[in-house]
């Protein structure tokens, strides 16, 4: 089989844009995508006949243009393929979910466009059934065209919450409330800056807010979700509002969201001996769809050029979009200035996969011996489980830094390390792959 020139992982906006560009250069391009359709987190396709989730007209136009160009490029896209990593010999590893087979590929260059994951701060009870991420609710809504059923509470921080709320409302089931840690209305300067700097984002945000008002959805700003308890079959959320009062809200589902961060877990920095590896889109820096497209395009051009011996710089739009993101974060800065992890009760689950809690981390950080992130993983099992740190490594590192202000702040990467598989993979697939047979001698 001919060696692939450019292997792109992820058919979200970044991967699609990269594929289109690299394809234009006449290179052999292959895309791997775990889903059965392209589009990624933002342009996820609905199943046949399902009503589409409402997206702002400008976003719809971007989507249309990208999808059309991707379809026209006729790039070979292998759906149902979960990327597992790059091995020490430079082979790209994946599992073909359509057949259960293990796949190894060799490519001259690799663009990793694995997108983002949501940041979720731990709160007592976040591990319960019925609690998901707000983006997770949105994913399901986009896929099925149905709003999540029952009483839904959205809580956390950031603009995605209002977007999901408005989309739910438009599909007929507005959330019971949106609990927002920030208060953009009080961040007047940032609001003005956003309006001036990235008018479209401001317009979109107003559109969502109008939708919420129309459906009388309460957007509680400066409020935080304190804990989640069971309530018969449902859930009960304990919320502290901006006046400091504690209120209880009953819900069947709770969608949490505290921002997004790059999904680069476990990925090794480029290996000098291996193929050229470039990260693109949210996988490089979580700046949203517009930036993902620009960055994906640049990555596609960069690998195409590099295969001919040039390198290419970051696209200029990114500076502007990074500033827009920074303004958004200022706009949504939590009103509460105390560290969001500082006051958590000891029995709050920090690492869901391994069921490790805040008290266990405090015990490890209490002694005179200042453990590194890797040691905390080893001795406390934080970030050791199946999600491979995607939902606890940041929080564990942040709490460690808070507990030991005198030591250098650990990073999520110190806990997760870099290794493959980046996602758990059935042993049957590997054992039956036939790879390595007869090459090794036994000792």
């Amino acid at each position: 089989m001919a060696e692939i020139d450019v292997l792109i992982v992820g058919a979200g906006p970044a991967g699609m844009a990269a594929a289109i560009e690299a394809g234009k250069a006449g290179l052999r391009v292959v895309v791997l995508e775990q889903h059965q359709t392209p589009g990624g987190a933002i342009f996820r396709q609905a199943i046949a006949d399902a009503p589409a989730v409402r997206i702002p007209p400008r976003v719809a136009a971007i989507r249309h243009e990208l999808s059309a160009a991707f379809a026209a490029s006729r790039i070979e896209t292998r759906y149902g393929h979960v990327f597992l990593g790059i091995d020490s010999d430079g082979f790209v590893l994946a599992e073909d979910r359509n057949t259960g087979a293990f796949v190894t590929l060799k490519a001259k260059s690799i663009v990793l466009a694995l997108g983002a994951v949501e940041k979720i701060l731990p709160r007592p009870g976040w591990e319960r059934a019925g609690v998901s991420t707000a983006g997770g609710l949105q994913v399901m809504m986009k896929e099925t065209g149905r709003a999540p059923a029952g009483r839904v509470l959205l809580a956390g921080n950031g603009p995605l919450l209002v977007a999901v709320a408005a989309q739910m409302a438009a599909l007929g089931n507005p959330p019971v409330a949106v609990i927002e840690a920030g208060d953009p209305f009080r961040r007047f300067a940032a609001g003005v800056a956003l309006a001036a700097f990235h008018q479209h984002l401001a317009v979109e945000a107003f559109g969502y807010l109008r939708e919420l008002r129309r459906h009388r959805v309460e957007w509680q700003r400066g409020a935080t979700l304190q804990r989640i308890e069971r309530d018969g079959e449902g859930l009960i959320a304990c919320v502290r509002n901006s006046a400091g009062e504690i209120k209880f809200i009953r819900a069947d589902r709770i969608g949490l969201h505290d921002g997004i961060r790059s999904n680069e877990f476990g990925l090794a920095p480029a290996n000098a001996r291996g193929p050229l590896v470039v990260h693109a889109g949210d996988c490089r820096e979580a700046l949203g769809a517009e930036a993902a497209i620009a960055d994906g395009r640049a990555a596609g051009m960069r690998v195409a050029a590099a295969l001919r011996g040039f390198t290419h710089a970051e696209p200029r739009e990114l500076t502007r979009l990074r500033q827009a993101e920074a303004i958004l974060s200022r706009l949504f800065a939590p009103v509460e200035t105390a560290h969001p992890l500082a006051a958590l009760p000891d029995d709050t689950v920090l690492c869901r996969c391994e069921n490790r809690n805040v008290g266990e981390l405090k015990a490890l950080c209490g002694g005179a011996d200042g453990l590194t992130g890797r040691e905390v993983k080893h001795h406390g099992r934080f970030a050791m489980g199946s999600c491979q740190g995607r939902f606890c490594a940041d929080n564990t590192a942040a709490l460690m830094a808070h507990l030991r202000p005198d030591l250098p702040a650990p990073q999520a990467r110190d806990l997760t390390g870099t290794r493959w598989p980046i996602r758990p993979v059935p042993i049957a697939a590997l054992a039956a792959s036939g790879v390595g047979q007869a090459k090794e001698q036994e000792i």
Partner: protein
Amino acid sequence: MTAPIFRFKGRAIPFRPGESVAAALDAAGVTLLGHDALGQANRYFCGIGACQNCVALIDGVVRETCLTLAAQGMVVVPMEDAGG
């Protein structure tokens, strides 16, 4: 034409073609997908294959229900009954 179904804990779960196992279970009112080896609730959480909280044994293989499309006659078994 009757809707296609898959099985979960002996229940017939209807689904629409193209829908994930997680979405079909959710529509059928199932939010608790089983329990992991530590006894914690398995549930739909991130929706993008990242959290691994939504796994079940699907036709004999451990899979994320959020990434696996439902298929006629599929058998979905909670992890505590997987016998691993």
